[in-house]
């Protein structure tokens, strides 16, 4: 497959990048959300335990003999120890004076201290603390006293909880992200597979396969396939029309040409002046050349037509070659060229006899045409190793290096670049062999060329 002329990026890569980027953004967002949530939950947990502690201390307060009695329950502080190993501080104020506890705890933000108590984050004893406070009115000797209880705890446990969740979140996020990357790659590959399948199906086709593309494709690709099929149909139509046109033209040219040739020969007999004779001879030669070219064009059109619907019969290629050599003998004799036939055994191939004869005729024609006078052409037919071969060997100096190197130059559309005479003949032979599932091989041997038609034996 050749690289596309202008690849403007790849759908697959673009899909992968977009999916992975989306996954990365989602993962990061999820991580941030989880961390914030964890922080809030940890904070709420700590707050509720602190407030439970404050409440239990508040409940233990009583007024006795004109004094406020404080009997902190064991659980009030031990419950804080159950959650984390953080430092714990408390303070009990009665109308602003310290009753007991850590008197130097931070002041309470009075504005936020409502009925449900208040929470605050502060610094104490060199560490960040979270403090919960609440108040209660006590009647001491008939006078109301406002008692404020604060319980505070350092935040190492909370930090540790958040860090643990962060580590877990990081782990899960990474796994999620990796899974997304794999998923993205698989998805992208899946998404472009129908495109690749279509490209493969089209590029695997033989040069003459102009059938429409069948088989299911995703609905997004249906318009592409429809227009591709439309294009193929138009191409096929236009190709067959131009072939018809060429065949028609060749046919129409050939008949008048033979009339002109006959007239030229008659004229040659009448004319005696040597320069006139030379001119006429040159004219006859040019007419032959044109006629031959027209014949080849007709042959080619015929090959193209028949190759599509091959009529296979058992063909004795040795007999076929002998017949052809016999028929071409007179033409060769004219130039003192002898054709030697060497058929070792008679292999039978399954094929279209007319096409095979046509192919061999074109090859022999070339050999005769390019061989100098008074030399020999060897034709041999042999079978070996599941392969039958007709080989034509001449002494005409061989192929120019340009033709030698390429058999695919015979393909349609590029054959105009080759030499019209031999190029078209070899193209015909090549197409015939291809239609039969065989091949055409070209070689230079000694002072001549060696062309072989290879058939696969069943």
């Amino acid at each position, binding site marked *: 497959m050749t690289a596309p002329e202008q690849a403007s990026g790849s759908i697959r890569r673009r899909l992968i990048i977009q999916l992975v980027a989306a996954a990365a953004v989602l993962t990061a967002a999820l991580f941030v959300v989880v961390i914030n949530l964890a922080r809030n939950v940890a904070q709420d947990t700590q707050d509720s335990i602190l407030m439970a502690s404050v409440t239990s201390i508040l409940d233990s307060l009583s007024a006795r003999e004109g004094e406020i009695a*404080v009997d902190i329950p064991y*659980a009030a502080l031990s419950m804080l120890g159950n959650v984390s190993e953080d430092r714990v501080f408390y303070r009990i104020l009665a109308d602003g004076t310290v009753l007991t506890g850590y008197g130097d705890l931070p002041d309470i933000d009075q504005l936020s201290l409502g009925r449900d108590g208040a929470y605050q984050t502060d610094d104490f004893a060199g560490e960040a603390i979270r403090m919960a406070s609440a108040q209660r009115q006590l009647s001491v000797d008939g006078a109301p006293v406002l008692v404020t209880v604060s319980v505070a705890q350092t935040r190492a446990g909370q930090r540790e909880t958040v860090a643990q969740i962060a580590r877990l979140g990081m782990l899960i996020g990474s796994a999620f992200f990796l899974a997304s990357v794999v998923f993205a790659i698989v998805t992208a590959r899946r998404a472009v597979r129908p495109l690749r399948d279509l490209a493969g199906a089209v590029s695997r086709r033989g040069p003459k396969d102009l059938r429409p593309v069948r088989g299911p494709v995703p609905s997004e690709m249906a318009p592409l396939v429809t227009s591709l099929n439309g294009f193929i149909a138009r191409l096929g139509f236009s190709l067959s029309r131009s072939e018809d046109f060429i065949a028609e033209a060749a046919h129409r040219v050939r008949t008048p040409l033979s009339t002109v040739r006959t007239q030229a020969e008659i004229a040659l007999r009448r004319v005696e002046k040597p320069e006139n004779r030379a001119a006429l001879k040159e004219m006859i030669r040019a007419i032959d050349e044109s006629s031959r070219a027209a014949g080849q064009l007709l042959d080619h059109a015929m090959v193209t037509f028949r190759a599509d619907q091959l009529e296979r019969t058992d063909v004795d290629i040795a007999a076929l070659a002998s017949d052809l050599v016999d028929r071409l003998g007179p033409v060769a004799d004219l130039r003192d060229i002898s054709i030697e036939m060497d058929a070792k055994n008679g292999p039978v191939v399954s094929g279209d006899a007319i096409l095979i004869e046509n192919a061999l005729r074109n090859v022999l024609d070339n050999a005769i045409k390019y061989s100098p006078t008074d030399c020999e052409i060897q034709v041999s037919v042999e079978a070996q190793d599941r392969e039958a071969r007709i080989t034509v060997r001449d002494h005409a100096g061989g192929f120019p290096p340009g033709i030698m190197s390429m058999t695919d130059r015979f393909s349609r559309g590029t054959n105009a670049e080759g030499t019209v005479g031999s190029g078209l003949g070899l193209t015909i032979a090549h197409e015939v062999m291809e239609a039969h599932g065989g091949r055409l091989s070209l070689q230079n041997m000694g002072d001549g060329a060696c062309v072989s038609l290879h058939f696969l034996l069943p």
Partner: protein
Amino acid sequence: MRVVTLLAALICALSAWISLAQAFEIEAEATYGNASASERLKIISTADIDLFAPVIEAFAGTDAGLAVDYTVVSSSELMRAIYDGGGPYDLAISSAMDLQTKLSNDGLTRAHGSAATDLVPGWAAWRGHVYAFSQEPAALVISPSAFDGLEVPRTRQELITLLRDHADRFRGRVATYDIAASGLGYLFATQDARASETYWRLTEVMGNLETRLYCCSGQMIEKVSTGEIAVAYNVLGSYARARTDLADRIQVIELADYTTMMLRTAAILRDAQNPDRAGAFLDHLIRAAWGPEEVPYYPFTRYPAETTHDNVTYRPIRLGPGLLVYLDAMKRSRFLYSWQDAMRSVP
């Protein structure tokens, strides 16, 4: 008038100087290892020198370049020494779990972690600062001679019944801690009060029998050994067992309904001059207490680290902020009032 002011100022300054020079009361001091070594590890402790010497010697003996200064104080003096910055100590060892907890809670200790600290069960350490290295029972110590003909009580209920039924025999011959004077006695009493209502009835019964109050376990053990005291409640079992010389005259009983276990703890101080050595000594203590092998110099009985079916009666006092509750001045005075009230009760 002026002279009086001057005199007052002088007295103030003098007393300030005195308190600065001797901010706390030292009971005993000893130096182990190479006494002239320049590197020193200073330990302040409530544990008796006699009890603790072998374990220090085992440590100091490993390094000729080290001297270990060991200072014995009472648990309250230990707090004063550290809070007033009375001495640049590296390691604090105390049986007063509540005070050790407060020390750490107030940020005067530093964290320590090592391969050895992993041996310590979770309930025997707090914050990675305070590590327990012993379990010592609050035991009943009795004089077998005084119990002649009587069945030895196995639970507090049996003890109450026994004391009630033989009030005449035991009157004036029951002893326990004066919890107002002894931090450990107070700790045991508060744990008892938390553990069971039986304790208050026991206290009232003991009050009726004119129970004698002592400051220390040592004194109670002595009195029991002479037979002057028949039964002493909440005596530190490790001290009683250490008195092998009195083994035939006293009997140590761990009550089966529950036995409070005091954990002796150590913590490296925040202002330690030699925290590395303090950590090494702490590891040394921990390995002796919780390590897989028993060592000969460990002065205490080893109790299992895990609670099993056989030792459900052992209740180690839990380290943690709960202990701070009973240190609260108002809580303490209230508890003391209730306790003294029960002890005073008249038939």
